[in-house]
């Protein structure tokens, strides 16, 4: 009865019929936590066979299919039985996830557990600041598997307000320093040998790009190939071809200068970022890059690689075999291998993008059983859950023959692989259905990319200065200028000007706040 009353009040609130003061919002949150304790105690009193009353948990998630595939149902059946919960999934169309997420937050119709595309996404930050998401610190002690398989840096990134409160469970993604997939058959044709460890220097890499462009690596007698295939990422930007190789490792302790901590991108006293830009510019100007790169998206760039237009792509090592399989359909000669590029000291290291997360699960104020809601994720990371997540279900995805998993072709499971991951389990991303020697080969590269990763000290912190309108507006100028420099329409020195403007448009405050933050974490 009380619950019902509160829900009605909640609807009234968001329907805009009531004007509530700021403090009542805060109280609401506290009430919830207290109540939950009571509910748990009650549940314990009415304990069923496995120690708790069955509760229903609503989950809003972003998957590529709206319905669970029959093949993955056994996983969720097992989970429901084990935890005595009833899962209710809300899976909006993938093309409308952002809209439905925004609307569900604004209107107050949110689920208990909600997926956010990124911890830096505005919808997530707004939800935290406006009190839609609750801190989960107090529940973490009881969630050993989540604790064991999450990067430390991810937890820090989820302290959205930087006050110790953690506002979600990361959907962990393997943090790594990716290299490049390369046409091994082209390397043979142009007579380049790559050492066993697949590591080459910057100069050797440039040589490969040049030979792939000018030495007719596919032997068709036509000048129709390019060394490198780039693309526009989701922000419509071209990523520089090489970056960490010139010493760009994100925010690090600086060797002097105005600030204690600096990233090469914003460092007016260092040339590192200009060298990053200059390298990409050189490649574009010499014609080593597929000229369509500034127009096409990632998928088209993959297609053009398969087509034999470009010979090198920045790619996760675990996707190499898939690329080879696709390429062979067009040209049976296709052989794909992998390349790592050393920095100028001959070392191999690079920053992972982000903070080892690929989206966040937030627990909302609507959750009546936050602990049990989070246990859902925890169970999926337990040995039993993870085994099914990673390898699939026997009889559905594979059959056991002589103690080996033999995979059944074309079994779709759009959900299971997109809920949780274990930190540093790069193997997860290599399809278990690939031939085992190929998996072995790729696993070596993936492991290498994991062990050579460095973390930027910003830990995903977003300085408040970045919310200033003039700063946000400047992003467009930044994108335009950087792209024009990389493509060769502007000289590299235009970057100095850009950086001065950036500092004037709020960059100064941004760097100061970032320094303050990093100093506080050290």
């Amino acid at each position, binding site marked *: 009865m009380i619950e019902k009353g509160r829900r009605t009040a909640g609807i009234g609130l968001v329907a805009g019929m009531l004007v509530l003061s700021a403090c009542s919002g805060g109280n609401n949150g506290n009430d919830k936590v207290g109540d939950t304790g009571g509910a748990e105690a009650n549940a314990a009193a009415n304990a069923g066979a496995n120690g708790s009353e069955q509760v229903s948990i609503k989950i809003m998630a972003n998957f590529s299919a709206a319905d669970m595939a029959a093949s993955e149902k056994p996983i969720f059946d097992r989970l429901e039985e084990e935890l005595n919960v009833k899962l209710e999934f809300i899976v909006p169309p993938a093309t409308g996830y952002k809209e439905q997420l925004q609307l569900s937050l604004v209107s107050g119709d949110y689920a208990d557990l909600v997926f956010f595309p990124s911890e830096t996404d*505005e919808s997530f930050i707004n939800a935290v600041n406006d009190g839609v998401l609750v801190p989960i610190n107090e529940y973490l002690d009881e969630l050993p598997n989540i604790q064991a398989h999450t990067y430390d840096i991810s937890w820090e990134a989820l302290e959205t307000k930087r006050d110790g409160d953690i506002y979600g469970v990361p959907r962990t993604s393997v943090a790594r320093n990716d290299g490049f997939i390369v046409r091994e058959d082209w390397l043979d044709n142009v007579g380049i040998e790559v050492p066993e460890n697949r590591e080459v220097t910057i100069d050797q890499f440039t040589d490969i790009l040049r030979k792939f462009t000018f030495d007719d690596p596919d032997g068709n007698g036509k000048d129709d190939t390019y060394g490198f295939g780039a693309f526009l990422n989701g922000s*419509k930007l071209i990523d520089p071809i090489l970056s960490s190789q010139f010493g760009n490792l994100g925010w690090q302790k600086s060797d002097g200068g105005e600030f204690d901590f600096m990233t090469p991108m914003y460092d007016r006293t260092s040339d590192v970022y200009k060298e990053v830009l200059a390298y990409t510019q050189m490649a574009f100007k010499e014609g080593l890059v597929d000229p369509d790169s500034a127009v096409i998206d990632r998928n088209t760039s993959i297609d053009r690689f398969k087509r034999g237009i470009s010979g090198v792509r920045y790619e996760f090592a675990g996707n190499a075999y898939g690329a080879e399989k696709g390429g062979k359909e067009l040209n049976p000669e296709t052989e794909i291998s992998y390349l790592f590029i050393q920095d100028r000291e001959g070392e191999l290291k690079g920053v992972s993008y982000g903070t080892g997360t690929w989206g966040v699960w937030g627990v909302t104020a609507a959750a009546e059983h936050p602990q049990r809601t989070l246990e859902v994720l925890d169970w999926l990371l337990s040995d039993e859950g993870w085994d099914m997540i990673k390898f699939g279900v026997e009889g559905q995805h594979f059959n056991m023959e002589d103690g080996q998993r033999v995979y059944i072709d074309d079994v779709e499971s759009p959900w299971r692989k997109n809920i949780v991951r274990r930190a540093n389990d790069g193997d997860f991303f290599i399809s278990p259905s690939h031939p085992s020697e190929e998996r072995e080969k790729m696993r070596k590269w993936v492991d290498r990319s994991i062990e050579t990763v460095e973390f930027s000290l910003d830990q995903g912190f977003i300085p408040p200065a970045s919310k200033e309108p003039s700063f946000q507006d400047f992003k467009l100028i930044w994108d335009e200028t950087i792209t024009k420099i990389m493509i060769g329409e502007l000289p590299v020195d235009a970057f100095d000007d850009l950086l001065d403007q950036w500092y004037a448009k709020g960059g100064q405050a941004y760097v100061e706040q970032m320094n303050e933050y990093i100093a506080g974490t050290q």
Partner: protein
Amino acid sequence: MQATGKLQYWIRHRWLYIFLIPGLIYLLVFKYVPMFGVVIAFKELNLIRGIWGSDWIGLANFTTLFDSPHFYRVLRNSLLLSIYQIVWGFPAPIIVALMLNEVRQMAFKRISQTILYLPHFISWVVLAGILINFLSPSSGLVNHLITSMGYGPVRFLMEPSYFRSIIVSAEIWKEVGWGTIIYLAAMTGIDPTLYESATIDGASRLQRIWYITIPGIATTVVILLLLKLGNILDNGFEQVFLLYNPLTYETADIFETYTYRIGLQDGRLSYATAVGLFKSIVGFVLIVSANYAARKISGKSIW
């Protein structure tokens, strides 16, 4: 006396007003009630407290908009693209409709009409993909032609100066056939005896088009033009978003893409609402004055 006159009017035309009731109720509920949402433009939207509970911020969003250096570029790009769309895109379906209207073989007319409107049903995602391939500097058809004539390849989608022409051509390609339908419908209202007497008087085909067909569809043309003016700051989101990139932002960034970035990417919902409101006000002022002018000049208008 006057009162009875009024009463008589109402009794006599009661049905006309009864007819209007469902439509007006619909507009009230589905269009006017949600319109109160524009208050978001003057508030700092707070998720928990909802629209009404959020704090007022007055005209802050509008000051931000007018202070932003992007605003003027976006405004200029939107207006210029609209002018291109009006100058090239608006007459195109009229011309094609006139051509179709002159076709004497019914079967040929029907088949070509059906073919012409096919591209309307292919989504921009697919068409943009085709265009990118067409215009590709390395493997595209257009550049094959250009290079075979001995010139260097043109990077069409990377040059700000080509952007508007590409967008407008693509829009004509996609929508011209669809746009003819409305004019063809208007042409069915033209009295065929006019053509017959003109033929007897010895008028040529072009004269008949000029003196009979075009005046026959003039009202439709004026009304569509007025409505287009009202939407002068709407250029269409998808085609621009799919084909632009940082190299062409200079000419390609328009209100729709700007609102997309601030609204959906940066999550500044109240600011995005303010931008939308600005566009609506401009459109409304334009359409009201243009309608007034059109009524004075040609006697044709929406109201």
